């Protein structure tokens, strides 16, 4: 198994444990264990299988399993995105494998990148989102829980399928998608009226950074992507989980804890998001310095949305307060000393 993917599966397991330990009292822990555990097993299977085709088939099995969870969306609307994603990924793989002109192999790169975006939940209109839907059955499960490990596997496999020239095209497509999602996600998280939708868009913005990191294709880029995934799995996801009650009640508070949460979400120092951004900018500078300039400008867009999301958390009490404090502490620790996390993924 790819060390990076293995680490992301472990981080997803840690996110599940956090959710179980600090979930609001009305949450069914038994249901959370069953659904979260099945998702984790499926993610681990995607990472563990030896070939790209098997990974796609496990992804399909995971999709149908996820679609059977009781929820507010129809089965058809939940299966549409994974079917489209796997079709694009499989067509990309096919075009990468066959003999033909260069343009066919470039289509392979585009197909693989677009399929990855669809699998994670970044395609507009393909992933209907209802803020009132449970996290386990909503597209957030793909964006924040299953997606990171799946993306690490797909990107590694895609580079294995493509030749040097088309690998560069794949990386460029990932950077383009990354910049698009950074802008779209962060502006929408800032300006959308619905608080739950704002959280969803903030995940999309984070994915923009991760895709850019993969696209930079240097060690610093991959390190940045890993740290962004860490902040999604053990930062934004648990905080979103904690904010769910407040999002429903539309309570916004401006206490010091809300500012701290906003700083963590915005990727300020000393949180893990800051280390990820520094690595990404360093990698982008090595690759093509104007890209670093664009990325730096894009990173400023996190500020207004993070302040909004921080306020939407309300004032956590009881076990939720402990959970939020623990999440912030973990993010500070990794932000100050990310080396063990990176070394475990052999980066």
């Amino acid at each position: 198994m790819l060390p990076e993917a293995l680490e992301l599966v472990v981080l997803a397991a840690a996110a599940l444990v956090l959710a179980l330990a600090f979930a609001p009292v009305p949450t069914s822990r038994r249901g959370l264990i069953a659904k979260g555990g099945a998702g984790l097993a499926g993610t681990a299977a995607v990472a563990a299988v030896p070939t790209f085709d098997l990974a796609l088939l496990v992804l399909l099995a995971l999709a149908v399993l996820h679609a059977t969870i009781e929820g507010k969306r129809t089965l058809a609307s939940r299966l549409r995105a994974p079917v489209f994603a796997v079709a694009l990924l499989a067509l990309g793989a096919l075009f990468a494998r066959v003999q033909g002109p260069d343009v066919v192999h470039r289509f392979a790169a585009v197909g693989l990148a677009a399929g990855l975006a669809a699998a994670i939940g970044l395609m507009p209109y393909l992933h209907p989102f209802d803020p009132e839907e449970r996290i386990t059955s909503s597209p957030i499960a793909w964006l924040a829980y299953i997606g990171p490990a799946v993306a690490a596997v797909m990107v590694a496999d895609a580079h294995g399928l493509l030749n040097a020239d088309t690998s560069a095209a794949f990386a460029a497509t990932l950077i383009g998608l990354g910049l698009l999602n950074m802008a779209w996600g962060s502006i929408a998280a800032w300006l959308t009226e619905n608080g739950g939708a704002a959280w969803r868009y903030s995940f999309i913005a984070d994915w923009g950074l991760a895709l850019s990191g993969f696209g930079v294709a240097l060690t610093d880029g991959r390190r940045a992507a890993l740290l962004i995934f860490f902040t999604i799995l053990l930062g934004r996801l648990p905080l979103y989980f904690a904010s769910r009650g407040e999002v429903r009640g539309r309570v916004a508070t401006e206490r010091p804890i809300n500012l701290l949460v906003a700083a963590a979400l915005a990727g300020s120092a000393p949180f893990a998001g800051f280390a990820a951004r520094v690595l990404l900018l360093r990698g982008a500078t090595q690759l093509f310095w104007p890209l670093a300039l664009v990325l730096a400008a894009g990173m400023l867009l996190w500020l207004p949305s993070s302040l909004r999301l921080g306020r939407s958390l309300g004032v956590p009490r009881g076990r939720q307060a402990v959970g939020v404090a623990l999440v912030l502490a973990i993010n500070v620790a990794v932000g100050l000393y990310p080396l063990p996390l990176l070394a475990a993924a052999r980066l």
Partner: protein
Amino acid sequence: MEVAGAFVAWLGIFVVVLADGRYGLALGTLLAAAGIAAVSLPIAGPTASAALAVGGLIASAGRLVAGPPGWTVMPAGSTPRLVLGVAGGLLALWVGLAVTSGSGAGLRFAVISMLSLAAARALSSDSGPVVLTAFGLLALAVGAAAGLSGPPHDGWPYLAAATVAAAAAWVPLRTPRAA
């Protein structure tokens, strides 16, 4: 054999594109599975090819017992679907035979047409049985596409594809929770 198999695979997915009723969807599944199994035979061998056929057969049986009753092939307003099926098939034929080269042209055509038309069918329908049928055929096409990766060919992708396709057809259809 390869040409006939590729044509039957396209015909199967074409029927799925055109049908809304359970009999039509089941027939399309059966045809597509038989076709993709036939084109996979020279590359993957009899065991892997049989796995695809059996997976398709189970998926077809599952569709026969659940879904909207009747055939409902080409209901009123299905002209766009007819155009999609024919145009998609021609495009897949051009890409599989003329744009790309090498051995396994029939397999390329069958896989490209099944992947693209299954995805298009899933995107254009709000019916659970229809999307599940497209899902099953997509799984079979992904499994068969493993044959294009070059030797050695192991049977696992074919077996996994057959299992996913067969299981998807038996997924219970439920109505979404209101609140």
